[in-house]
């Protein structure tokens, strides 16, 4: 079976919006998870866990520390998803 194509940014945004329980329009590539969102730090941890689920591997905590914005998260997802494929 051919691997599924990676999520588009809009699909990825839907995924993040679902995990963080935040409306999609609030999530742009520049959105900074700490500076711009009213989310608990625990929600950011939950986002990393859910990202691990869709990527199928563990995100080292030092790498997770570098994922600060939506764009960081999406680029990390794209890089890792293409490697996994």
């Amino acid at each position: 079976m051919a691997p599924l194509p990676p999520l588009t940014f809009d699909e990825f945004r839907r995924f993040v919006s679902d995990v963080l329980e935040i409306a999609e329009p609030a999530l742009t590539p520049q959105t900074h998870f700490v500076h711009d969102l009213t989310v608990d730090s625990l929600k950011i941890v939950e986002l990393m866990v859910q990202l691990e689920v869709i990527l199928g591997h563990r995100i080292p905590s030092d790498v997770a520390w570098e994922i600060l914005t939506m764009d960081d998260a999406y680029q990390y997802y794209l890089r890792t998803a293409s490697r996994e494929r």
Partner: protein
Amino acid sequence: MIAELPVLRPLVPVLKFLYGYREDGAENMPASGPLIILYAEYSFLCDLYNALQTAALLSKKIARDRVLIFLAEELFALPYFHSRHLRSFLKVFPLQPQGTGKYSLNLLEALEHLKSGGIIVMNPEGDMSRDGRPLPAQGGAAWLGLHAAAPLVPIIATAGTYDAWPPWKLLPYARGQASVRIGKPFRLAETAREKIVEEDLKKGIAKIQSEMSALRFGSGGLESWAGSLAGRADVVNRPAAAKQDSPPKANTRPSSIPAWKQGIPLLLWRCPICRTEDSLFQKGTLFKVLSVGCRACGSVWTVNRRQRKDFRLKVSRGPDPLVGLDLPLSGWYDEMKRDFRPEPPAWVGLGKSSQEKTYLRTNRVKLLLDRSNSLLRDWSGREAPDREFPARAGDWRKLGPGRLTLTNLRLIWESPEGSLDFWWPRVKTLHLRFYHLWGLGYGVTPYRFVFLRESGLKWLTYAGELAKKRRAEAPTEGLPIKISHY
């Protein structure tokens, strides 16, 4: 458990003699991981008991090299907490009450640790209670418990640890009734949850709180510990202005007593009768608190310690209807806060814009900057950097003392070394350790303020109430601040 460790064994009879030390429920300790051990922290004696229990745990075969512990970030200022020796047998991670920011990502590692059968040790409240009552639990322990479906085991120092050595007292009472109870393991989920939503977390937190509270206070619960509030209606049903002989005064003058010596006035930073701030003083010996008085209205309370209960403060001098009123200390604390609304005092005068109002100012505050903070290389601007995160926990450089001013728009720190502004919309978290150490999360950058003469609790209350007011006036401006319970 501590008697099993030869090096700690001699301590047991001493603790037994002084505090009737006992460990109940040692048989509840599971024989192997995964396991989440829950501690509570509401007294310095709790800290000692928690440290002894951890040492005993580490000596057990099942725990060797399997324990990961979350410790207060302040402890990492001690080089030992970074040492190879410690890390050779224990994983330690810093914990910052309220928004832990990037530190919270350590929970990812903790989850992996649990999944591989490890043991996690943490205080779910994330902080030390100041008046002996439980703090609202944070989500970390519940989150781990749900994701890993691991059993949680509360190891809780009983309520008597509070009156034996309350956090506002410099030295402990020589005697008391303070033991440790090890609870039965419980789970928050039968199988590991793949995804956790807010509702799951709330239920998990509530379950943790009820299990911990039952061990700490016993069958009588919190109400029995606090004791009777009889007579309180006399106080609460009367408007504040009717209770005093003179109008309320704010910020009379800074105390000349170092904060660590002030005692009960660290908690009661405002007279519960006349509402004057910084007016209470404590009398007693090094080991015993005898009374508390108010310089402004002349009221005097006799302090009674009751073992395994909250302290009682009885009005022995004051307005006639209140003489004889005997309430728990936590009751007086609630009474003190009841009608508190921050008001700018008469001496205001920063010469700032008409929208900026000054509420508090003190000259004796030290600022702690993380050593990687760019201000230590280039202090040209006034606004504090908000995008830098420490490379190493607990690596602080102390500056000052300087002058700290709290306005409705910002916090200002001024000293010969430089001046800094912390604008409230960019302040994400604010926590208080003990009564003197403020931790401020400015964006993702942590700062610390050490109050040398004043109660940090007073400042926290002002900041918290002003934050509420700002949110009410402009709900869309900035983000809510996560702030320590006050």
